[in-house]
């Protein structure tokens, strides 16, 4: 069983509204996967289905090898950090984790270790009502790790975290991956998320736009690489003309550099030519980002031709 989550034509309807419609994908174990989509794309519905809180209207869903709907014992193997939960303001961080550890039948010894791991040991005996938003997110992450779950679902986990706490969170996510756990992260912060995920599930209006590793998605989307050129003095007009002759249109940037989109297929050839070109003083290559991939998918028509799965 190599997949933590398997979806086959999964659907969830609320009356006439299709919150999820025919979604098929596999989420492998030992990977960090981004769950992306605009508001109303179906991310929350998918998370609730994975947690077994709602029943699918159609299709098949397997989580850690079994259907999750009302499978209470399965939830012992899943950790979940909800979006912007306030938790129980009248409990201390330690009391909250003690309570939830009892519910999950997790070893109570984990409580102190987890509070230490998320950097909350110093505030463990303070009421959660006195915590900052970032501290609440950290106590939320700690509870999601109770019972060493095989699958961890993080819903907008870095909301309210400062840059250092965000790095710490992704360090822990990396440790979970190294430990063979599967982590599904729902987030709008694509640039922040990109370096930490192995792949993505991208939803729009209940349908799956794309699923797979970031590399494979980039290859299939065939988005052009962006090249930034610094021309030698007075050489810019001549360089632009030459690039145009070669079928590449260069745009001048305010900083004096030229920017051009190079199709993936001809990237290496064009780069070799540019490196050998005496009019080029310097160059940078930028691969398409997750945000660009997301925009490309989101901006296109809703035809299946755009779907990568």
């Amino acid at each position, binding site marked *: 069983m190599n997949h933590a989550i398997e979806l086959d034509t999964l659907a969830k309807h609320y009356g006439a509204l299709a919150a999820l419609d025919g979604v098929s994908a596999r989420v492998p174990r030992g990977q960090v996967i981004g769950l992306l989509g605009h508001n109303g794309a179906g991310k929350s519905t998918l998370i609730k289905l994975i947690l077994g809180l*709602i029943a699918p209207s159609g299709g098949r869903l397997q989580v850690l090898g079994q259907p999750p709907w009302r499978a209470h014992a399965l*939830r012992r193997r*899943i950790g979940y950090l*909800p979006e*912007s*939960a306030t938790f*129980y303001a009248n409990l201390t961080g330690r009391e909250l984790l003690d309570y939830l550890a009892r519910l999950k039948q997790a070893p109570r010894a984990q409580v102190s270790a987890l509070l230490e791991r998320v950097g909350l040991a110093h505030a463990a005996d303070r009421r959660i009502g006195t915590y900052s938003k970032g501290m609440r997110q950290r106590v939320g992450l700690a*509870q999601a790790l109770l019972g060493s779950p095989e699958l961890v679902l993080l819903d907008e986990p870095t909301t309210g975290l400062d840059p250092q706490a965000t790095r710490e969170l992704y360090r822990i996510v990396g440790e979970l991956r190294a430990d063979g756990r599967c982590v599904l992260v729902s987030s709008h912060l694509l640039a922040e998320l990109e370096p930490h995920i192995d792949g993505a599930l991208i939803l729009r209006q209940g349908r799956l736009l794309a699923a797979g590793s970031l590399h494979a998605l980039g290859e299939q989307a065939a988005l052009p690489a962006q090249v930034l050129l610094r021309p030698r003095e007075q050489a810019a007009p001549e360089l632009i003309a030459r690039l145009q002759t070669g079928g590449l249109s260069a745009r001048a940037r305010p900083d004096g550099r030229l920017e051009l989109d190079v199709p993936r297929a001809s990237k290496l050839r064009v780069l070799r030519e540019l490196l050998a070109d005496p009019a080029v003083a310097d160059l940078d290559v930028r691969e398409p980002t997750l945000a660009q991939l997301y925009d490309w998918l989101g901006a296109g028509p809703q035809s299946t031709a755009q779907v990568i799965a």
Partner: protein
Amino acid sequence: MNPILTVATKEFRDDFRNRWTVALTILFALLALGIAWFGSAAAGRVGFTSFDATLASLTTLGAFVIPLIGLLIAYDTIVGERDDGTLLLMLSYPLARGQLVAGKFLGHCGALAVATLAGFGLAVAIMQWMQPAAQMAQAWLQIGRFIVSASLLGACFVGLACLISVQTADKARAAGLALIGWLATVVLFDLALLALLVVSGGTAFERAVYPYLLLLNPVDVFRLVNLTALGEGAGNDLLTGMTAHHNYSPTLLCLALLAWAVAPFAWAMLAFRRKEI
């Protein structure tokens, strides 16, 4: 530990932490002592006099106060978690929805029962200390019946509060519905019955139907459980006036109260199981 007990323990502790339990204990003790001491003020004397009269007054007062407290203590128990974003978190843990409601119900009922026992028990202990000559053995039996029935009445309204909390979308609506529920059971139901009685005008209705209609309201069942156990008179005029022609079986009354203690809670559990989260 069983998840129901884990949730119940947390809710019970929360009620202590939020000072609910202590405040209710003090309220109940003061009400009981106040009624006992000043109960005969209209007759020109103060001090502990008839225990039956005290208990009759306490029953009337309890029938107003305990439903309100049961509703207040638990109206936000599920909808509050939804507002705070912790409901999804709780349901992501390995416990069934019914277990969550059951734990919350038991925790609040436990806190209310402890407050009832401590408050009224303390009051009776003080009465006995102030008036050692009184026949307190009988009083302890009656106060025992009162405390148990008050706890069951409390459970009924905690269950009703859980049902409201499961079915409403936000805390404000839940609070409004809780107040409407209190008004309907404590005030309007009896008014409606009295109106029926007046309109029907006949003794046939009064004998055949009316006594059983009273069983449809947990507040009336609570009154009947306690007042039928007291002798005639003893400040017992309201009840004896309304149900003079009917002998209620104590077993029937106890079963009715037990059924009322469980029914709203069971409904809340079923409703929550079917609820789209």
